[in-house]
């Protein structure tokens, strides 16, 4: 059905042309699910977009052959491509919020491909859309038909995307990281949905992901890409069980898989470093000139826990459960809070999720690192410089980085800089808010190892906020589970993973694929 041969994609920059995809080959049969895995920048999305005919930038040169149903797509006219797009080839993207038009009703967007490719009346369009919505398990389809994307949850939005891509019953569905932006429980549901669609409609799926475990559970064959090349391909089990290439081995090795990397330093009789007693927190919403900020729903509801010196505690929960808010509350970043927070050491520091957005792009790394000391005011320029150099050394970067700007750094290096920044005031406790979820698996592993090293060598306690139970398992000795603003369960790693009491904890563990 699909036969891609020797595909090259080159970006013609004004300075140096860069080939982003080399010798890409793929053959897909009707009803087959093939996965493409690779880290960011490996060219996997590029290849998929090229197949879907969506790489039309003028500065891109494409060579090779893309045969779809025996027809050459690479040299096909725009008008011919448009006939295929949305009709024979459907595509879903990573971020369902930004991939949907915010000012159009979801029903309208689901119908769109049908409106373009078939000649149907408005009533026929609507009934087709509602039937499709029901098929992808969108509850209350008649009502939600008139909703706008921002009124739906992330999982529902991705279902809308899937419904819109499937409405013309395409032969091929390209899914570009469709579950990456979703919570684990939702992820599992979307994967199930894709499996069912593939089974019932015999739709072939080209599934692109950086998440190897998801690919393994869904696909029959897999292609591994690195730096624009396919390094290995074959049936999933074969590739995963007996990887031939070094790169694939590293990739598989780096997948978090409920294995302890290291235990935290012994903390049996150590002193407490943080006590959180009955803390509630909420955000104020400014409603008008004359009314004071209305009382909002509590985002964190009477949370209590303690942390000891040198302990690594995991705070897990799905998006919107209040875990980040709790972290911010501990740091005193919110105004409207109740309860008591006792710090037994100097103020903790925070590391944020997105290392791309957290560093001021116009300043050098040195300037950024020295900033907390500059604000503090008690340090001489030389002390500041020495401290910045020392902290960079601790996170594994040398002095030369001090004069660089964030743009020149990779994601992993940036996150190291963020960690160094958190260390500048020599805190005894670091709050790490999803510090690895924006990073590739191999880089994730390096950052986790760095955090463990800081914990062991400097005895820094870490409150590790994450949605990923596998990562949490790797380094945390105690776990706190949050749901809807409440702490539903807390205990040692062994208690939480092997003897969960709360049904929600059990559900999280089963979605994450944990088996005792």
């Amino acid at each position, binding site marked *: 059905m699909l036969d891609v041969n020797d595909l090259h994609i080159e970006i013609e920059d004004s300075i140096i042309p860069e080939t982003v995809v080399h010798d890409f080959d793929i053959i897909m049969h009707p009803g087959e699910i093939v996965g493409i895995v690779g880290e960011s920048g490996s060219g996997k999305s590029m290849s998929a977009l090229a197949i879907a005919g969506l790489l039309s930038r003028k500065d891109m040169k494409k060579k090779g052959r893309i045969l779809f149903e025996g027809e050459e797509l690479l040299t096909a006219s725009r008008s011919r491509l448009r*006939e295929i797009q949305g*009709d024979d080839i459907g595509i879903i*993207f990573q971020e369902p919020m*930004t991939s949907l*038009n915010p000012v159009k009703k979801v029903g309208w967007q689901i119908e769109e491909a049908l409106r373009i490719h078939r000649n149907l009346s408005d009533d026929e369009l609507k009934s087709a859309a509602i039937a499709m919505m029901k098929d992808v398990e969108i509850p209350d389809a008649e009502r939600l038909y008139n909703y706008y994307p921002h009124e739906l949850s992330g999982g529902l939005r991705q279902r809308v995307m899937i419904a819109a891509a499937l409405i013309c019953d395409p032969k091929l569905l390209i899914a570009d990281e469709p579950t990456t932006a979703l919570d684990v429980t939702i992820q599992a549901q979307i994967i199930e949905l894709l499996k069912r669609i593939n089974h019932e409609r015999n739709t072939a799926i080209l599934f692109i992901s950086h998440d190897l475990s998801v690919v393994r559970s869904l696909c029959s064959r897999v292609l591994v890409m690195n730096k624009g090349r396919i390094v290995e391909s074959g049936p999933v089990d074969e590739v995963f069980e007996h990887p031939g290439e070094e790169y694939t081995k590293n990739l598989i090795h780096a997948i978090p898989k409920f294995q302890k990397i290291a235990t935290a330093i012994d903390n049996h009789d150590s002193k407490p470093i943080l006590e959180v007693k009955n803390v509630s927190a909420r955000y104020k919403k400014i409603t008008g000139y*004359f009314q004071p900020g209305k009382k909002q729903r509590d985002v964190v509801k009477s949370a209590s826990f303690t942390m000891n010196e040198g302990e690594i505690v995991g705070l897990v929960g799905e998006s919107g459960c209040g875990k980040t808010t709790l972290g911010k509350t501990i740091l005193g970043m919110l105004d409207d809070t109740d309860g008591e927070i006792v710090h037994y050491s100097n103020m903790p520091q925070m590391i944020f999720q997105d290392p791309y957005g957290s560093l001021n792009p116009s300043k050098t790394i040195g300037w950024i690192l020295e900033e907390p000391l500059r604000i503090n005011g008690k340090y001489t320029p030389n002390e500041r410089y020495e401290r910045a150099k020392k902290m960079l050394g601790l996170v594994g970067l040398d002095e030369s980085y001090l004069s660089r700007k964030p743009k020149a750094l990779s994601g992993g290096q940036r996150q190291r800089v963020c960690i160094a920044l958190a260390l500048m005031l020599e805190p005894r406790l670091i709050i790490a808010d999803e510090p690895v979820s924006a990073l590739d698996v191999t880089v994730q592993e390096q950052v986790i190892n760095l955090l463990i090293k800081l914990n062991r060598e400097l005895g820094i306690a870490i409150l590790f906020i994450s949605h990923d139970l596998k990562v949490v398992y790797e380094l945390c000795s105690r776990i706190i589970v949050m749901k809807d603003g409440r702490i539903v369960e807390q205990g040692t790693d062994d208690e939480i993973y092997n003897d969960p009491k709360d049904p929600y904890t059990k559900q999280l563990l089963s979605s994450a694929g944990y088996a005792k």
Partner: protein
Amino acid sequence: MKTIIKKIITFIVTVLLVTLFVFIAFELIPGDAATARLGINATPEALMALREEMGLTRPFFIRYFSWLGSFFFGDMGISYSYGVSVRSMLASKLPITLTLTLISFIMVVAISIPIGVFSSKYEDRPGIKIIDVAGQLTMSVPPFFLGIIVTYVFGMLLHLFVPGGFVSYDVDFGKFLSYLFFPAVAIALPKAAMSTKLLKTSILSERKLDYVRTAFSRGNSTMDVMYKHVLKNAIIPVITFLGMTLADIVAGSLVIEQVFSIPGYGRLLISSIANRDYPVVQAIIAIIAMIVIVINLIVDILYQILDPRMREGR
């Protein structure tokens, strides 16, 4: 419903504050209506008598609230200078200023939306730079100067209209419009250039967003992606700008009326300030303030229609 009540309260408070400021301003500047009418050589007794007669000796707030009270019932008082009712004076001039404003605004929209879409579509063609440069040039010229240029080029050189001439709307509506056309050009061009640039930038940044790729993936043509997807999103920031522009045009037309000798609110306002003719000045400013607030109200409502994210949750 709650938002509407809030808007009405804002409306009333703004009108109160604006008119109060005008009252205070007249208190502070030297000279009053009595001196303006009798001249600087009048005897103090004559002045006192006239002040008594005009009610100027009453305390400030009494005067303000009695004016306000009658204003809301449509009675704007009697002009000190002309001795006729302010309402009748303004009623005959309102259509002139409103028409000028409206023509200018329609020009802004009619010029900026097509050119904005066009210049974003062919953004990478070299010729499109000319539009950018022309826009930049127009933007930097103040309207009154543009008015002088327009008068010179279209009036004196091309003889398309008679500079300084004017035909009232009740005499010949067609001619009336043709005399307003060129002043409107002078008002509209700089605003249109700004709005074009804003729309272009907005379209260019919208086009990079993910939903545009999704729209292409469903087989939309470039035209359809622009008109069915991008434009409705890109227009949202432009609407805010157009609202502010409309308010600005109302104020800007006062200056242009002076340049083109159009007997609208602008000329009346300037002569009335010189004559200390409070009732006329008060009424004009209150009406302009009300027009501006109503425009803002319309923009807010438009905003909610265009952007579902601004609406109240269901």
